[in-house]
């Protein structure tokens, strides 16, 4: 008998909760069509910051991010020398990436950041490989401008110091 009364109470209180939740606003979104806002700190796809003022990428090719990475995601080819250096190649193998933020924290030049893009799944293996043209803010245009700027700066430096060696060009593949 107590079981019976208890069971009825269970039903009553359970339905009470259901009734209350019936009138609450729904919490789900229709995902591929609707997307929820992403917080500013979200750790999604990387981007290399473009410096509009200097017309170049902030990256100087110091490889500190590559050293900070626990899983060897980052590889780069340095372009230029000294204070005028940048990168001609910057490749990230995101198939290995843990999105742990350590490279972003290691960067002293504010060059690499993590953005709000999160839909990175692919059917192809090579889609995990992100080259500099995918990562730089402004895409291919920015990479081209970056190389031009660095070459111009190197040439200026060359003129000021005639003893310097030949400037490194863009590494054509």
């Amino acid at each position, binding site marked *: 008998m107590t*079981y019976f009364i*208890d*069971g009825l*109470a*269970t039903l009553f*209180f*359970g339905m*009470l*909760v*259901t009734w*209350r*939740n019936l009138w609450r606003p729904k*919490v789900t979104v229709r995902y591929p069509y609707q997307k929820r806002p992403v*917080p*500013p*700190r*979200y*750790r999604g796809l990387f981007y290399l910051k473009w410096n509009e003022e200097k017309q170049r990428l902030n990256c100087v090719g110091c490889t500190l991010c590559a050293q*900070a*990475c*626990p899983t060897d995601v980052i590889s780069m080819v340095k372009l230029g020398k000294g204070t005028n250096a940048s990168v001609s190649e910057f490749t990230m193998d995101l198939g290995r990436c*843990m*999105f*742990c*933020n*350590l490279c972003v*924290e290691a960067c002293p030049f504010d060059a690499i950041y*993590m953005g709000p893009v999160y839909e990175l799944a692919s059917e192809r293996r090579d889609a995990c490989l992100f080259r500099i043209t995918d990562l730089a803010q402004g895409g291919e245009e920015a990479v081209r401008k970056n190389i031009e700027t660095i070459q111009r700066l190197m040439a200026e430096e060359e003129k000021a110091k005639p003893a310097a060696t030949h400037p490194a060009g863009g590494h054509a593949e």
Partner: protein
Amino acid sequence: MPVSPEKQSTLSTVEILSQGMVINVGPQHPSTHGVLRLILTLDGEQILHCEPVIGYLHRGLEKMMERRPYRHNIPFTDRLDYLAALSNNLGICQCIERLGGVEVPERAKYIRVLLMELQRIASHLVFLGTFGTDLGATTMFLYAFRERELVLDLLEECTGARLTYNWIRVGGVPDDLPDGFAEKVLAFVKVFRQRLKEYDQLLTRNRIFRSRTQNIGVLPKDLALAYGTSGPVLRASGVAYDIRKVDPYEVYDRVEFDVPVFDRGDVWARYLVRMEEMHQSLRIIEQVLRDMPDGPVQTKLPKIFKPPAGIAYSRVESPRGELSFMMVSDGSPNPVRVHIRAPSFVNLSVLPCLLEGAKVADLVAILGSIDVVLGEIDR
């Protein structure tokens, strides 16, 4: 009981039946919460013997850590207990801090405790949801995960990730809390208090749920201590043992909270301990937000961190129990030896004792109540 092949062929039907039937649960089973395989010997509905088989998720984490500099290892610990990644981060960071004698700023300690308790709520909500589903209360899963989403949103806003946070660093936390975070957390606390009452109405006072959990899988106090269990499993058996009280770290000695203890030792008690812990976590969160001082959140460390030679041990109360890290340093940038005491591993070892004599139908209830995470067991 193993029988030699020669004798096997001459056994009568009765003798074969009396040997018990061997069935396999897992490794891919919806109620094992990971890749756990259980070899059960049954006599009808009764479990005579249970043999857990683990190791399907083994990644050699301890060895991997020995090959990397200290601070590179923090993101790996996210993959141990993936439902409470921040607790693991804190465990290893505390260990490295002790090894190198690093001081943590006051504000960072409070932020750590705040994140830790949010993490505990998120982890217990996963337990609640999956435990409910295991026992047939599917509604609970939806409600618990709805509230878990609120916690994950908060943690995502603070850390930038939803599951593998990696937000504790040696010497503090990488960044301060975002603007308006405290108000959002307090708003969540208010909502969640009310939702906890609803859980009680829906599940705690549910007649069927109580019948399926009370006096099932009883773990006596002496057995719990003998096996070295910790966390909610131990506290449900009547031992008031919580690292936050016994060996306070960060600012747990400055906040007021109770350690829930139940004497019954059954599945029901383990469930109640976790429900009560969520209440206590809310209390801690409120106090931490009230007392949090201003100031820096991270101590500056040299680029190549080389702690002096020595050995360090640290333990934290993760949602699953006592999580400890041991590290040995010889003065080089890499640790010589890392050992992790995973609470789930020790808690799982008690499972064969609990299952002996239990019914097959109670298997998922007992296993669910131990709340194991296989990422931590296999590591």
